[in-house]
């Protein structure tokens, strides 16, 4: 019996180790090694921090980097603001008969490819788009305006893409929030604002943190939405990585950028977890 237990462990652990080692650990190590190698003036490749020096000395790189980080934090915050009332409405306000239906309805659009959703926004917002058509027909505008290709539209697109990943954890924590807590606070004289800040938000913190981590990470690593909806003069950092790899074919430089993006995402997630006193293991459950 004991022997078959050991065999079980071996059979279960083998595919898992192969997966994590070959597709996660070693590729990341390889990327880190690539990042600290560069050609010297004789055309030989060796250890060098030149790739990182380029990043800090060229404003276009680190500005894009900072821009991506700041916008990602903003998108995460906006996504939370927009979805929190919806999650609350579905779990606590609407009659239980519609609860399941509304939940499915909120989740359904996110099964559709991100590309289709971005494309939908493009045909709504562009100069010859549907919104311009209605604005001109109703006489509000007399000449079409380009609503695409600016930062505000890009942020909206990123929020739209991320809402699901905030909604799901929020729905599940709110589901477990005892209505009596809210009722008691109300009986003791609390109003909507104080109950939200003192009861609901603290209770939902694990869900908020886990949603924020996923949204932040996905926004930071997004390529499609900034590329198709963002302005031509405001790049996203993943576009810089793509350019290094595919256009300039400078894999060492690209790896250094990839490495920096990975550090940034881990650092901000770590800070977020520390500030809210959560742990990654608990948050993903």
């Amino acid at each position, binding site marked *: 019996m004991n022997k078959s237990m050991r065999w079980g462990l071996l059979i279960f652990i083998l595919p898992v180790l192969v997966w994590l080692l070959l597709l996660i650990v070693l590729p990341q190590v390889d990327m880190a090694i690539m990042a600290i190698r560069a050609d010297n003036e004789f055309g030989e490749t060796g250890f060098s921090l030149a790739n990182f020096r380029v990043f800090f000395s060229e404003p276009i790189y680190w500005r894009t980097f900072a821009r991506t980080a700041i916008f990602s934090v903003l998108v995460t915050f906006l996504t939370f603001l927009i979805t929190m009332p919806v999650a609350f409405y579905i779990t606590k306000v609407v009659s239980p008969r519609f609860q399941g239906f509304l939940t499915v309805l909120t989740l359904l659009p996110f099964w*559709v490819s991100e590309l289709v959703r971005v494309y939908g926004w493009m045909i709504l917002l562009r100069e010859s788009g549907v919104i311009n058509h209605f604005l001109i027909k109703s006489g509000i505008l007399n000449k079409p305006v380009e609503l695409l290709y600016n930062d505000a539209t890009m942020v909206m697109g990123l929020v739209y893409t991320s809402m699901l990943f905030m909604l799901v954890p929020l729905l599940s924590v709110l589901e477990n929030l005892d*209505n009596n807590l809210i009722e008691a606070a109300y009986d003791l004289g609390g109003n909507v604002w104080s109950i939200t800040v003192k009861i609901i938000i603290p209770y939902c913190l694990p869900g908020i943190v886990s949603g924020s981590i996923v949204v932040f990470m996905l926004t930071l690593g997004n390529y499609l939405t900034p590329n198709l909806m963002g302005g031509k003069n405001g790049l996203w950092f993943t576009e810089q990585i793509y350019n290094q790899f595919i256009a300039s074919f400078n894999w060492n430089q690209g790896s250094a950028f990839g490495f920096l993006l990975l550090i940034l995402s881990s650092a901000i997630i770590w800070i977020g977890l520390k500030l809210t006193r959560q742990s990654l293991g608990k948050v993903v459950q």
Partner: protein
Amino acid sequence: MIRNIPQTKTYSQGFKLYVGLYFVFLFAPLLVTCVLAFNDSMFPSLPWKGFTLDWFTGHGPIRTGIFHDQINLDSIRVSFKVAFFVSLLSTFVGTMAAFLFEQEDFPFKQLLFFLMLAPLVIPGVILGISILLFSNTLGVFFETRMGLDVGLFRPGFWLVVLGQFSFITTIATLIVSARLKKFDPTLEEAAMNLGATRFETILHITLKFLRPSIIGALAVSFLMSFENFNTTLFLVSSQATLPINLYLQVRDGSTPVINAISVLMIGGTSLLALANLYFSKPDR
């Protein structure tokens, strides 16, 4: 505030309005995309010029519908093939991982668990480039040391499958684990006391119990693979998957054929998502 607390009319009406607007925001792009697939016009835009199925069934020379558009049909076929392999592989390894983390004990378990979660916090673009780099390193190694030219290490079909597999397996693991947590271990003990081996027990008892979650993991991995863009972007060769192919077309202008494909994708994914919801309900 909640159901049983009375509120002012303005408050509850305002709340309703907000949620209504949210749903408009949520569905507007999808609805417009679908409607314009049937517009009798050369461009996916208003005004409405009448109903047509040309963008589905038209066969040239001016309007080629999706059913006759060879490039797009090819990419749909590639996407199906990739998603088929990714969902099978991810669910298989994910189920193994679920058993490993829920039922086994071994040194460094916590470390391995965090490693398993890592793909959730690594951006997809990074996974893509790191796998591209590593496969290239391996390819060069095999070629210079052993004189072997291994096709697997070059961008192409199998590298796309592996790249998507690398993070979708984490999702599959979490889906199967969630159900395995609820499993009553006395059932396994009873089976083993009655003389079943560990593997007979798993086959007849535990896997039966896990079936809804395994079906769920298959469906979710299939959808995630079918629509993946970020990781795939770095690993494709000339055999583009559907999202990559659509991206190239959307970037260089658009025709209502893209709307027609979107209609098919929206229909297909909704059906699969609803079917999954129905079949993976544990107490059916």
